[in-house]
């Protein structure tokens, strides 16, 4: 299978992380969107990017996925610098972004959605529908979801299950790095838990995962590394054992600013 072979090729390079970003800056005119961001993404690990609204999370993933190009700084993959002109370049290099709208057609059945755009063909005309159904079912099973019926429309799945279809699809088509943009933001508590489980499952299958969220309670259970952003600046880039839960929550919530706010409005 594509994923495994490519990952095996990658694993030979133990010196370097899968992705590494050093002092990434991005300016839009005289607006500083990001300044001196440094972090790394390792295969089989989840790197969480945390930040409040306007912290630069979106700009950051757009740089990672090739939508924007960094103004300065180093972006390396297995130690060698990369330059993506557009999202297609990034996708070809194995960086798949799962955005909030998930790129799924709600009325289309699961197996058709799974292979949308890259349908396996027989004789150039006929779709290999039996193979497609079987594969879609198997791949979803690897994510821990037993589908009742691959023929059901994606729209009938729950939010978490839909996320996992998008994730499973990215994984199956050879992604080495998976970028999840706020996958839990629109979900309830239980569904968020389901998505976190699938996120972890994707990492366990050998992918480097970048998990963007503004909720530290979702980041802590799955994260191996935490990058905290605030107004385009990095508040720090920590491995799991370098930071405590309380510290993370405090930094995330705005740290000193929040303490001052509490003082002002008299929260005990």
């Amino acid at each position: 299978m594509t994923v495994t072979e490519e990952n095996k090729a990658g694993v030979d390079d133990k010196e370097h992380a899968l992705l590494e970003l050093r002092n990434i800056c991005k300016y839009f005119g005289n607006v500083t969107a990001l300044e001196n961001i440094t972090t790394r993404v390792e295969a089989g690990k989840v790197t969480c990017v945390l930040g409040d609204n306007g912290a630069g999370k979106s700009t950051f993933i757009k740089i990672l996925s090739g939508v924007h190009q960094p103004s300065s700084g180093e972006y390396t993959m297995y130690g060698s610098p990369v330059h993506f002109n557009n999202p297609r370049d990034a996708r070809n290099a194995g960086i798949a972004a799962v955005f909030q709208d998930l790129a799924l057609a709600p009325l289309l059945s699961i197996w058709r959605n799974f292979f949308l755009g890259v349908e396996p063909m027989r004789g150039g005309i006929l779709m290999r529908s039996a193979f497609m159904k079987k594969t879609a079912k198997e791949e979803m099973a690897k994510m821990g979801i037993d589908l009742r019926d691959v023929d059901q429309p994606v729209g009938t799945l729950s939010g978490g299950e839909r996320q996992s279809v998008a994730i499973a699809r990215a994984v199956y088509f050879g992604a080495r790095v998976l970028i999840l943009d706020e996958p839990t933001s629109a979900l309830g508590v239980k569904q968020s838990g389901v998505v976190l489980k699938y996120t972890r499952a994707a990492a366990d299958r050998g992918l480097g995962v970048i998990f963007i969220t503004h909720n530290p309670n979702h980041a802590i259970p799955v994260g191996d590394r935490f990058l905290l952003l605030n107004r385009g600046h990095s508040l720090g880039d920590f491995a799991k054992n370098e930071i405590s839960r309380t510290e993370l929550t405090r930094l995330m919530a705005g740290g000193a600013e929040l303490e001052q706010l509490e003082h002002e409005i008299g929260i005990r």
Partner: protein
Amino acid sequence: MTATDVRIGDEPVAEPPPIPSDERISHRGPMRRWLVSPEIGALIGAVIVWAFFWGNGQTFGEADTTLNWLDVAAPTGIMATAVALLMIGGEFDLSSGVMTGATAIQIGLFSRYFMGDGVNIGWAIGSAFLAAAAVGWFNGYMVNKTGLPSFIVTLASFFTLRGVMLVISKRLVGKVQVDQIADQDGAGFFKSWIAHEWKFTEFGIRDNLFLALVFAGSAAFIYGLLEQSFVRRASINPVGAGLTVVGLAAAIGGFCGLLWTDGLGQNALFGVIAGVGVVLAIVGPALARWKARGSDAGAGALPPEAARRLGLGVGLVALACLTPIPFDRRQSMAILTWTSSGLRPVIATIAALAGIGLAVRAMLPELRGDRKASSWGKLSAFSIYSGLLVMTMAICFLQLTTVQALRAMGMLVLAGGGLTFMMIARGIAGKTSKRWQLYIGLLVSVAVVVLAFVVRADSGTVRFRTGMFAAMMIGAIAIAANSLVEFLMEKREHADAVADRLGKLLQLGGFIAAFVGLIIRLVWSNLTPEHAAEVKAAGGSVGQNVLRQTVVWWLIVAAIGSYVLVKTRWGNWIFAVGGNKDAARAVGVPAGQVKVGLFVTVSLCGCLAGTLIALRYGTVQANQGTGLEFEYIIAAVVGGCLLTGGYGSVIGAALGSAIMAVSVVGVQTTRWNSDGRFAFLGGVLLLAVLVNNFIRKKAQEAR
């Protein structure tokens, strides 16, 4: 697998972890799988409308009327296929109707006037296809480029094409029609290859072939359904195999006996033999192939809710048996004329009051909320409107409907309702008591037999006395056999790939066989030329039984369209582009190209329809096809396509155009006021879409 320290090389990607079974998983039965398909509403609608006219129309169901409605349906069907694809892709084409006329005009003009005195019609046809492709490409390009709704862009094309056609034909020909196309060079050649007409007269073994194919097809279909429903045995049970052989022999012998004898006593004897044979031929293979049900949980009592519904159902069926009594079956005048003049104001008042009642009911929540003066004003306006509307509808209905039709409808509704309640009772009883499920199933089949005899005793026409009677008896036998099988065999709760595939093949094969049988029955007449002359001499009319190649083109275009939609990647892309364009683009589907392709397809199909019109009539009006675009869209919607895109079926669209054609032709064959056909068509369309939505919702719910 735990989260912490898995390296990419050594984790077992290929082995899925064991999955805990999900208690929400339910195996979808074969019937349910049929019911979720988008075209099912149109299929049911087509059968109902067809059966309705078969019962009411004088000549409906004969070869000439069948060929007539096929001929009406075919051009709409060709276009509806393409329009359905475009609608699934999320766009409309309002220039599709005028495209048929424009290309027909272009063919006429080119073949008569190009380079002075015209060219061979082949060149004219070729140039028309090129021009159509160009217009389609332009539509698609403009929609993509400007991002305007296709409604606007194609409306502009519609007016432009219409204007250009009028100007050119007036300037060149001096009038708004182009004629003598059939006299041009090459017209004969192309007519015989593209727009051929086959004449059918007589086909001696038609009815026997029809019966054989329909029986074989239905049997295969039923076995297919059973195959998908039960647990297989490890080995074949010899008793069941023996019963199968005996049953088949009895069934075939009984039917042959029925065909070859004519006396009432002999018919009854052979009928019973055939019936028993059919039951054995269904129960036998079941015993042979599937596992018997364990004897547990079979003997519960009848639940009270099932008993209530059963009582209601039996009562309704009994009432249905009594409906013929107050009516005179030979009475074919409209109900309004039939009723005494004192009764008419009463009927109108009741209808008006019903309309007002509906309005008040609809307004109730608003009235409860606040008692402002404005809402009272709204209520009075709304009630007057609704009262008048319902009254008009009632009068139209009474004017259009004959006494005979009322009697038939009353019986149909009562009997249908009663049987439905009995089936619901059977379903409820089946959850707790297999025994009662069997009893109620057998009771249903007895009710159908009783109704069959009522129909037979009370009908004036041969088709009801024999055809309908036989069909109902066979239905009753099938219901009884199915109840027995369901009582005896163990239902499958899991998928079984081999059996499911075999079942699907059997269903498909059976469906095709029955369909071919039906076509043979409908297209060929069993009148010999001599016999036809006799009928004519006696003052009857004999249709000319012409099958036009348009119908063949319709089938070809629908088959290709359906194949492309379901089996190829382009179909996948069409669904995706209509369902979520941005998503499709994000995963690499060339959304723009797909849309352009769809617009070009619609235009090319329009050109095909236009060519067929030009070759067939030899004369084309400049306003040919104007206004038909809505018929195409309606056919697609009736066929289950969503107006919002992303869902639908080409087969459904083909059935939708059949429904419309059957309605138009059917009304002509009845003794009704044929101006009422548009009202009828409106009702049919509304009903078909409602049925479609209802079934889809029910089927989706059960997941």
